[in-house]
């Protein structure tokens, strides 16, 4: 560290609606949190609405030697959009839809456009985003930064596979245009590149044709781990497949849960594409028509402990029956939005989500080993979600030909150390099984873990691109410093 060139400071004074260079104000420091409210960092928060404003902030960052983290909706479970002591540049306001062609299904957006804004724009014309996350509040910039996957990863790949083109502003001041052919290396590195190579300024995506706003759903229970894995694997013909796993069940019941598969509806029999309208899709704001959903998380809190969740998980499994029904896209995909602020139900210290991707050959034993360890450590996962995946061509890819298990863990005042140790033990099991990780989730990944699953070659290539795009290290995040910078 060289403090010598940091003695002269000219500071940003951040105003309500933009950035004004003037004097420092420590009142502009704010706590940034991860989505689970379990991690906190102090940062100078600012926002920009134009490329010029972003350029100004990059300039200030360089002058002061203080790094920037670009942030969207802040829905990552780890510290990828956090920057202790640095600048947080929020790009949510850069959210115009620049071009939409309802004939070809090609849309060009600014990075702050959320999946919500995107689907609401395209669905009435008979299109749907080809890949969506479990919440619609994420921004496209964030989605590309971590290269999100959906419940159709085994079929449709990650969102990056549907990007036709993007433009980005590099910290050097250059603007680049990337497609799978043009600036190919940057295309495959910036998507999934954690937002530290450059800042997306526009993103062009191909939407998927829809004939109905409904999906045919089939749900059924699975009694144990083998049948759980088998069920997901056997139904790869479906357009979407997702499993819920009761991670509190032990012994022969370990791995029991419920599978939901969904297929597109070709003709829903409704008049004039009624199901494609936004109003048709919108989730009800009240539960049973009575309780406002915004209050629901208060009712969750009493059950969010080891005993309570065991009861809830068991009850959920026992009432689960085989059934088929139709559901709107929004209701099926955006489960996390079904209960607003559900993450607050985890209490004051929040939650951490851990997700690992394991090759199909080693999934069974590894999942058993992980769940067994969590139960023995008395740190069971309160929610387990399983999916099927396939590999992709992105440099820092998380996907494998196998399965993923996402587990939510409650963080308490006293369990942080034990939880961290357990998650790192999980990392070792996953590595041994030939698995990979996803940079929007796990918070405890060590540099050696990243090196091990990405391989030296990918990391060297990423480093070279970083040096080329950002020689002054203006774009950094807590995650990047922790896992990559000194690794």
């Amino acid at each position, binding site marked *: *560290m060289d403090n010598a060139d940091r003695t002269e*400071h000219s500071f940003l004074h951040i105003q309500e609606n933009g950035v004004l260079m003037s004097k*420092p104000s420590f009142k502009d420091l704010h706590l940034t949190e991860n989505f689970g409210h379990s991690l906190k960092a102090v940062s100078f928060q600012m926002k920009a609405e134009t490329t010029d404003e972003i350029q100004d902030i990059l300039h200030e960052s360089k002058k002061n030697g203080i790094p920037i983290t670009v942030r969207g909706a802040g829905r990552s479970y780890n510290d990828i959009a956090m920057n202790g*002591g640095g600048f947080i540049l929020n790009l949510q306001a850069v959210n115009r839809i620049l071009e939409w062609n309802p004939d070809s299904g090609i849309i060009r957006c600014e990075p702050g456009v959320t999946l919500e804004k995107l689907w609401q724009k395209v669905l009435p014309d008979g299109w749907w985003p080809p890949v969506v996350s479990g919440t619609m509040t994420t921004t496209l910039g964030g989605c590309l930064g971590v290269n999100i996957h959906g419940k159709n990863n085994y079929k449709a790949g990650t969102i990056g596979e549907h990007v036709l083109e993007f433009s980005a502003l590099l910290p050097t001041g250059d603007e680049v245009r990337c497609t799978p052919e043009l600036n190919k290396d940057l295309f495959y590195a910036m998507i999934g590149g954690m937002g530290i190579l450059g800042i997306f300024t526009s993103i062009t995506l191909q939407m998927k044709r829809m004939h109905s706003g409904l999906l045919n759903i089939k749900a059924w229970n699975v009694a144990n781990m083998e049948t759980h894995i088998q069920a997901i694997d056997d139904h790869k013909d479906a357009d979407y497949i997702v499993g819920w796993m009761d991670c509190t069940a032990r012994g022969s019941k370990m791995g029991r849960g419920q599978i939901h598969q969904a297929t597109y509806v070709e003709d829903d029999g409704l008049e004039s594409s009624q199901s494609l309208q936004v109003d048709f899709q919108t989730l009800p704001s009240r539960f049973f028509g009575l309780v406002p959903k915004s209050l629901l998380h208060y009712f969750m809190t009493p059950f969010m402990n080891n005993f309570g969740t065991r009861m809830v998980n068991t009850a959920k499994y026992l009432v689960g029956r085989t059934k088929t029904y139709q559901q709107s896209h929004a209701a099926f995909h955006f489960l996390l939005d079904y209960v607003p602020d559900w993450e607050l139900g985890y209490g004051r210290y929040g939650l951490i989500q851990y997700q690992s991707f394991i090759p199909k050959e080693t999934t069974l034993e590894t999942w058993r080993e992980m769940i067994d360890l969590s139960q023995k450590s008395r740190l069971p996962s309160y929610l387990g979600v399983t999916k099927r995946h396939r590999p992709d061509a992105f440099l820092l890819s998380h996907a494998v030909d196998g399965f993923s298990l996402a587990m939510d863990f409650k963080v308490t005042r006293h369990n*942080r*150390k034990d939880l961290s140790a357990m998650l790192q033990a999980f990392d070792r099991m996953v590595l041994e099984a030939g698995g990979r990780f996803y940079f929007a989730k796990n918070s405890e990944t060590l540099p050696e873990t990243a090196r091990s699953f990405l391989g030296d070659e990918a990391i060297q290539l990423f480093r070279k691109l970083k040096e080329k795009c950002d020689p002054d290290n203006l774009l950094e995040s807590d995650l990047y410093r922790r896992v990559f910078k000194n690794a």
Partner: protein
Amino acid sequence: MVDNVDKQFPPSTPLTQRKCAILVGASSGIGAALARRLASKGYRLALLSRRSELLSTLCEEINKDAGEVLALYYEHDVTDGDSVPGLLTTILADMGNLDLFVYNAGISQMVGLKKYDFVKDRRTMEVNLVGALAWLNPVAAMFQQLRSGQIVGISSVAGDRGRVGNPSYNASKAALSSYLESLRNRLTRHGVNVLTVKPGFVETDLLAGAKKTFLVISPEQAADEIYKAISKHKQVVYIPTLWRWIMLIVRNIPSFIFRRMVF
């Protein structure tokens, strides 16, 4: 400014993040002892003082004992108030967080009973009081905004009464105690704790010029007591505790007696 060549804090994983503290006036005495104490409790430290050689040795010692970089040092003269916002920002960027701020910088310049020395008095006020204002204002603004954090000001029993021996020192510490009380009244409602520490005689450089001393404790003992007070989120502590009762008596000595006393 002397830099800590090629050193930086090793990143910790978020769930096991270390607490972070800034100590102003950390090169010797209570500051150095408190730095060692906090480091032994796993704190990540930014140590500040004019005397960078002493800080460098202290950092080396702390980091060697810890087996990792726990402490970084920054050369800083507290009378240079204009440099504070910049330096605070740099430290924040280096540490990534701030949980505890300790203002320990202080000097005592004895003047004879018949002497009045404005140059010395001004310096005393600049170091003991104005420097504290330069640091505590931005830190208080930040903690108020964040609704968390703890501020510790090392004042002195000397601030409880104006004595004949060292008027400007007494005045500076009285003002510091009063300022810290105001901060406490402002910040407690925002979830920020402000601790005023009032040590008696501690075996430090400041004590070298003092003639009559009693109940002298070592800086390490003082640091232990301060650490306990920090952990318990106390508001005002006398060190050692006996001083609370001594000062209760001293504060209540009527003026017509006190002004005839020489100490």
